[in-house]
């Protein structure tokens, strides 16, 4: 269930050149600043705009090929598209809007699943209204519901949660995870919120000024600080792969193993599972010269400093390889098989602690700052 896009297109003076391949199913974040071409790219994938040239493949189905003159019309691409502007049908009720796609699709979702979607989106009380009588966030939810109920083969989501409050987002995000894990529906997800990206996405495509700068797994992408759209972000950090080992008796925390280190995070809802993804923001990682005791932070992890980047004016980003090297052999070697953590601290405090490359220190991380997420497949 891969997605391959290699197209070029022109909109007025704007040139769009997208080139990426996502080898796997799962959620792909499309990330880039305002006006970078995200919506245009999604329109092209959906078949609403025809690129000048190139090739698009979704799940091994060629939907567009300029040379072979293949151009599947949008309605045959079986995409569910949540538009940036809701685009609800003004003359139809909420209910008619919601079932518009479903009624046109032979493979319907089971009844219970439909109800669950409506329930989750909180739109049951709105069913009889028309879009003109909805609030901004309600429109967005109905639009999302309409795409989900149409039971698509791929979901294209253009900032689907931007007008929603935190609590509502927390209800919807797990559903996306469920869709990905249980229904295996690939998603291309445009968002500006790194939080959402980190929590959801398996892959990430970074676009800027119409060019796809990079694409790859979220693990590597969120660690990269060289890409303009990601650099300097407040919540940049690391995504780590771990597995659940056990939990405490009251099921309040889960104990994980990450490259031989024990980590404690808020309970993940499963007694044991091989695949967990953790998002740890650089700003949440504290560095201690000696392992502190009697602190609330549950994670005190031996790490080795492998890089100190001095790019920002008053903070430094420090790369920390998990584990204390027995010798200094690998000290300049960033990867070396072991996962790397990023910490951001003030320059002043780096200076105060006299931090240097190769030093064996401890990363102190509060459990509640870690976003953990169980995945049913290998990540």
């Amino acid at each position, binding site marked *: 269930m891969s997605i391959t896009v290699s197209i070029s297109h022109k909109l007025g003076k704007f040139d769009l050149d997208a080139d990426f391949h996502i080898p796997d199913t799962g959620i792909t974040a499309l990330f880039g600043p305002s006006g970078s071409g995200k919506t245009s790219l999604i329109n092209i994938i959906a078949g609403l705009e025809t690129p000048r040239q190139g090739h698009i493949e979704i799940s091994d189905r060629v939907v567009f090929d300029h040379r072979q003159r293949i151009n599947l019309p*949008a*309605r045959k691409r079986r*995409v569910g598209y949540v538009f940036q502007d809701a685009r609800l*049908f003004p*003359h139809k009720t909420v209910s008619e809007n919601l079932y*518009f*796609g479903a009624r046109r699709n032979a493979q319907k979702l089971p009844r219970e699943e439909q109800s669950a979607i409506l329930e989750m989106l909180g739109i049951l009380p709105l069913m009889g*209204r*028309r879009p003109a009588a909805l609030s901004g966030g309600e429109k967005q939810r109905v639009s999302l519901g309409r795409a989900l109920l149409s039971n698509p083969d791929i979901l294209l989501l253009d900032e689907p949660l931007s007008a929603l409050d935190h609590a509502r987002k927390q209800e919807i995000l797990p559903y996306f995870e469920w869709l990905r894990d249980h229904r295996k529906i690939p998603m291309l997800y445009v968002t500006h919120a790194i939080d959402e990206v980190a929590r959801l996405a398996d892959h990430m495509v970074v676009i800027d000024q119409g060019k796809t700068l990079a694409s790859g797994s979220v693990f590597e992408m969120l660690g990269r600080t060289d890409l303009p759209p990601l650099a300097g972000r407040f919540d940049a950090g690391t995504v780590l792969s771990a597995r659940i080992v056990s939990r405490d008796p009251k099921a309040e925390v889960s104990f994980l193993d990450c490259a031989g280190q024990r980590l404690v995070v808020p309970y993940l809802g499963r007694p044991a599972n091989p695949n967990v993804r953790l998002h740890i923001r650089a700003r949440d990682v504290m560095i201690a010269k000696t392992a502190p005791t009697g602190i609330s932070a549950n994670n005190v992890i031996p790490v080795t400093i492998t890089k100190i980047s001095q790019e920002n004016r008053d903070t430094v980003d420090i790369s920390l390889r998990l584990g204390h090297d027995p010798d200094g052999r690998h000290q300049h070697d960033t990867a070396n098989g072991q996962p790397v953590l990023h910490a951001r601290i003030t320059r002043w405090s780096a200076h105060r602690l006299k931090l240097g490359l190769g030093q064996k220190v401890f990363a102190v991380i509060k459990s509640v700052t870690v976003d953990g997420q169980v995945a049913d497949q290998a990540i």
Partner: protein
Amino acid sequence: MSLTPTEIEALLLSLRISGVAVLCALPFAILVATALALGRFPGRFILDAIVHLPLILPPVVMGYLLLIGFGTRAPLGSWLYETFDIRFVFSWTGAALASAIVSFPFQVRAIRLSLENVNHGLYQAAETLGAGPVDRFFSLTLPLALPGIIAGAITAFAASLGEFGAIITFVSNIPGETRTLPLAIYTAIQTPGGELAAARLAALSIGLAFAGLLLSEIAMRHIRKRALA
């Protein structure tokens, strides 16, 4: 003022002829308006021009052309007559045909204007939800253009009610068959001292049209209210 039997006859005839004319022309008007508004095909401009012909040509000429085309001695007319026993000349169906053709441009114009106002983004949304062109036409285009369709039908109905030249030329002025209100008015006016009779008939015409307008206003208000409910 109670109506004389002749007045009632003319009134009912006008109503029937205009009603049939508008209703029968409507599907064609929608078709043509759609082609003009959304289609991109060679000959689009020619079609547009042909639709406007009945407006441009004096009604008498239209009536004359109809007479030439649909007369029982004309190829088309005689074929229709012999094959289907449909006879337009000198029958109310002919008057309806003339009214339909003469009021056709009004319907097309209004519908086309409405169609062109439908937001393209909605079509895109419908397409991603699996709706093909015909489906989109019926689920989006038509309902969204409804105000224009009603407006067009009303204008056409009013124009049909007032149509004179094409009818008298094509199907003559036969009481009970083709003498609609305007022809009755004309007949009255031809008569010295017929002014009063003409005025009564004109008042009837106006009353009829007002009723039609009132109905359309109510329908429009209903549609708009629904859209905000």
